[in-house]
């Protein structure tokens, strides 16, 4: 029997997300077969993981791993749905607060950080990113199961639809598609970037023609996320199919991220 070793909650989380080196995972497998308490701790770690996902507290990499490795399971998605309800209850003054619940209620800053995106025209927002986006009248049109796991950085400014684009989780599967329902209006983009120390440029590519949206964009940081923000002029959003490219200014012109962009009906 292998020696029982103390295992931290974070190690269990990384195991659940399949982010541990093989040797360490093998050690945990062996310990799981012998150690009764590890069964319960693992279940607890899974619940905490889902709670943190529902509260928007996972890093981009963790959110991606959760989606890839765990949310294919309908039971996990059901558990996440419950976790999201718990997260809303925790922040809902008509629920948890009335019962004196929650020893560490999130600060206003933490609540702001947990939002995905919203416009200044949004009324008091319900919790949960997709819900929030819908309430704000914003259409967010890339892979939703990624979006609502990862907080967008800040609340954008008034009067303009804002789209949060997260670092792609699908390099092997081709770009995700951002759909903008109608041409003729400018939109604001908040785009997660890998390196807050670099400058970035955004392009729209239509066929072989590449047009600059904005250049020399300096990333801002919010908690674990770095992002750039740019407004896409209405004139660039002509109906039809385009590509949106994120390029690091000193990256040799190679796009760091690419999204398909559909303006208007397909």
């Amino acid at each position, binding site marked *: 029997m292998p020696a029982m070793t103390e295992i931290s909650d974070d190690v269990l989380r990384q195991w659940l997300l399949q982010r541990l080196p093989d040797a360490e995972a093998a050690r945990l497998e062996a310990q799981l077969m012998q150690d009764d308490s590890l069964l319960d701790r693992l279940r607890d770690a899974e619940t905490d993981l889902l709670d943190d996902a529902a509260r928007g507290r996972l890093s981009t990499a963790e959110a991606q791993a959760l989606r890839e490795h765990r949310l294919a399971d309908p039971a996990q998605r059901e558990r996440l749905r*419950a976790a999201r309800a718990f997260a809303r209850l925790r922040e809902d003054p008509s629920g948890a607060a009335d019962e004196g619940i929650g020893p560490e209620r*999130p600060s206003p800053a933490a609540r702001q950080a947990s939002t995905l995106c919203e416009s200044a025209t949004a009324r008091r927002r319900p919790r949960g990113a997709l819900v929030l986006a819908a309430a704000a009248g914003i259409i967010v049109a890339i892979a939703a199961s990624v979006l609502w796991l990862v907080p967008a950085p800040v609340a954008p400014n008034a009067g303009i639809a804002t789209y949060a684009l997260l670092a792609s989780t699908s390099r092997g599967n081709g770009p995700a598609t951002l759909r903008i329902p109608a041409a003729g209006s400018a939109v604001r983009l908040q785009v997660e970037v890998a390196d807050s120390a670099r400058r970035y440029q955004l392009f729209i590519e239509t066929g072989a023609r590449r047009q600059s949206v904005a250049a020399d964009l300096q990333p801002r940081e919010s908690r674990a996320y770095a992002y750039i923000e740019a407004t896409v002029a209405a004139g660039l959003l002509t109906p039809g199919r385009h590509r949106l490219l994120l390029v690091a200014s000193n990256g040799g012109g190679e796009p760091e991220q690419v999204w398909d962009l559909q303006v208007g009906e397909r």
Partner: protein
Amino acid sequence: MSLDTASGTGAFDALLQRLGADGDPARAYERLRERLLALFRVYLPAESEALADVVLERLARRAGEGVVIEDVRAYALGIARLVLQEARLRASRRREAEADPTLQPDPDAGAEQEEAERALHGLHVCLSLLDAASRRLILDYYGADGGARIRLRQQLAQAHGSSLNALRNRALRLRARIEECLRARLDPARKP
């Protein structure tokens, strides 16, 4: 228990006999199955039940064949690793064959919002079915984030005069009850 009949009653009996060497064979069998389920829930949660059963079938077959198994759990882990390898290979082939998931139709934001509202309402109802102390416990236990989470749970355990393990077990049971209640309210047609 869900051993395939093809593995035979004799094989199953042989496994139980081997498991019972140190006590109650039925309990040892269930515990072994729990461990296998937990293992597969880490790697392929959607298939955990089926894969655990495959391991138990193969294990029983070996026991029925008279294979000398000194440490049943370690032997089961060896089989489980092979079964996991096979399942991952199948999953990888499936993924290659599937369409790009990022290009699936957009979610219906209105429906998402409606479901979130229903889930919150359902959670209120399910919590109201608990006694006040249990309701308070589950909301406190799962109330904190990050590093505060561990500290809070230790404080809660002290306040309840119990160990952290005992408190965890109680919270896990309550959470499972609430999630089952919520599932029943949101998907009434689905059996647990």
